[in-house]
């Protein structure tokens, strides 16, 4: 957590090699376990509870999903076994300094270069972008607008012209990075999916990552609730455990209501992702909006219930609170997702 890298390589090796977490959702033909998104849900909850510091969400939620959704057979064979084994860490570089979460936000450009492509632009807010072995970059032909023209490219993290830097951030448990692309040259095999149709793919990938993140938020929110309840049972004031006061008890009760409801939202979205069912977009947006609000609320209440100790560096409450805020913004904030739901409803 305290390193620039943001994770412990030994922990990463253990979770990928021994525990096979990175292999969970990768199909068996690419060296994975071939399990479903519903199977990923409880793991993400545990990751949230523990505030795991590792490039798991980026590699599995973004990298693996983008490849699975539209990688060619050759691309899948080349990258997925490495991801399953934990040897390859991947991420999606779509956002930029303009902070937009829609296609308009993609300002980086690409141009034909011989049989391959040239990429130029500045990506920002890239999850684990400074440590990823494989970057999936969104760019557009100069002069194109909106979703039109946006394409995705597979770019090795150490490719010539790629300049990456950690963006130190308030949440100490996750890493964001900037990725500058200075006329980076890639071959024609780097194009992921159809040229010009990258935005749909990008959104679908993001929605799947949002669902995984929502499950993580549920687990983290539940951990906040449990810490609060445990503390409220043992901390005494006025000769009584503070949890016997309704002011505290009712805060905990509301947290339970929110946590279980958030679990329903994330679980429903995971089920749709498993079936590749209709309504995935709305379910992902709903889950991301609701679970973000829930985690933030629970993390904030946890500090309040713990009182002074909850405000210190020694107690983990601040880490949950910081992760909650960062997670709220990651892949679009609740207001952004509620607006998506409104659009889906035909409003």
């Amino acid at each position: 957590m305290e390193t620039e890298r943001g994770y412990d390589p030994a922990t990463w090796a253990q979770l990928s090699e021994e525990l096979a977490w990175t292999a969970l959702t990768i199909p068996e033909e690419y060296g994975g376990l071939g399990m479903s998104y519903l199977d990923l849900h409880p793991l993400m909850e545990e990751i949230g509870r523990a505030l795991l510091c590792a490039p798991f969400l980026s590699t599995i939620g973004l990298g693996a999903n983008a490849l699975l959704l539209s990688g060619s057979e050759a691309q899948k064979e080349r990258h997925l076994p490495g991801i399953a084994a934990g040897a390859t860490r991947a991420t999606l570089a779509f956002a930029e300094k303009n902070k937009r979460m829609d296609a308009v936000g993609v300002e980086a450009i690409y141009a034909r270069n011989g049989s391959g492509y040239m990429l130029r632009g500045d990506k920002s807010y890239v999850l684990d972008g400074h440590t990823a072995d494989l970057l999936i970059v969104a760019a557009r032909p100069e002069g194109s607008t909106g979703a039109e023209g946006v394409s995705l490219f597979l770019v090795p993290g150490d490719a010539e012209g790629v300049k990456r830097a950690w963006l130190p951030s308030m949440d100490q448990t996750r890493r964001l990075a900037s990725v500058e692309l200075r006329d980076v040259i890639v071959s024609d095999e780097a194009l992921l999916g159809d040229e010009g149709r990258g935005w749909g793919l990008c959104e679908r990938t993001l929605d799947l990552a949002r669902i995984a993140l929502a499950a993580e938020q549920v687990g983290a929110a539940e951990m906040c609730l449990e810490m609060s309840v445990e503390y409220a049972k043992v901390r005494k004031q006025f000769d009584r455990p503070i949890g016997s006061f309704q002011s505290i008890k009712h805060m905990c009760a509301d947290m339970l209501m929110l946590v279980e409801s958030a679990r329903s939202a994330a679980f429903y979205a995971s089920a749709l992702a498993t079936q590749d069912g209709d309504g995935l977009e709305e379910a992902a947006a709903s889950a991301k909006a609701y679970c973000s609000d829930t985690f933030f609320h629970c993390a904030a209440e946890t500090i309040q219930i713990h009182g002074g100790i909850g405000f210190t560096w020694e107690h983990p409450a601040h880490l949950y609170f910081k992760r909650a805020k960062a997670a709220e913004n990651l892949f679009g904030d609740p207001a952004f997702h509620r607006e998506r739901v409104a659009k889906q409803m035909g409003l």
Partner: protein
Amino acid sequence: MEIQLSKEEEAFRQEARAWLQEQLNGPFEDLQGRGASGDQDTYVEERVAWGKAMGAAGWNCIGWPKEFGGRACSIKEEAVFNEEYVRANGPGNVGHIGETLLGPTLIHFGSPEQQERFLPPIVSGEEIWCQGYSEPGAGSDLANVQTKATLVGDEWIIEGQKIWTSGAQYSDWCFVLCRTDADAPKHRGISCILVPMKQDGIDVRPIKQMGGSSEFAEVFFDGAKAQKDHVVGGINNGWKVAMGTLAFERGASTLGQQYLFQKEFEQVVAVAKESGAAKDPIFRQRIAHAAIGLKIMRVNALRMLEHEGADLNREALISKLYWSNWHRDLGKLAMDLLGPEAELLDGAPYELTAMQKWYLFSRADTIYAGSNQIQRNIIGERGLGLPKEPR
């Protein structure tokens, strides 16, 4: 994610749908959508007739065991029936207190004689029940009931007052929590007594609610009589019986209720589109938030049904707090969307629109059947194991 139905359950759905459609588009057409919350004091006679028709066709008390006249339906089948009932726009059920509260209580705590006497007319829709729990001094603190019952010869003589008694005006019977031992600690001196409503010692005074209708009443007992053997679960054991009754009040009705909420929500969306408010970014946020909340309510209910049998699972504990808040917020949203038009009535002297009715009635949702504050105590103490408030 939907309720997964077996072939038999699907056939059950079709059977229910066919009967409800036939009746509610035929002989009972006038009753469609009548007698809902906020409107429960209308069409009473017709709805009693409807209850009897339901009984004759075997649609009352379908979840009860067969030996007591039910169909032994699973909670899932009950949920399916409730969903179909709302889909068919079925009227408010005047028999629901008997079916959902008193019946299960008698099945659990009643003597064989009581079961034989009282259950069949609930199933057939011939006897309507009301619940005599709350008193002016015993709301959330239910154990504080003061209505007194004294055994004189073969009869209980009852003195006191109940309040907020839904349907007291038209009920045949009331199950009344009475103090039968004034000297015992307050939870231990209470009995649950079955009292006929149509007698001289009882005076029912309807209470006008904020919506203008009178769905509940004050009930005054002044020397009212009840049979000696009509105590449920034994003398001075009424607290246990009362707690049991409240635990029956959940589960299968939730999906039907949500279908109702879905209909109301659609009306709200229609208002937003018509008025142009749907273009306002703040209203868009609020409408989307309500839509997300409704979907979650459904998944919560499905998860609760999956856990059928697991006592006091978390989904069941949060259900009341969740839906009452959601519904109350929807009422506010509906009125906000209408803007100044929200004020205008259907007519003088006080003819509310349907939306105004449920907007006003939704303020009761967070109070009756355990207020939000009581719900939070239950969640905190039973769901999270937090220590009790000293009492």
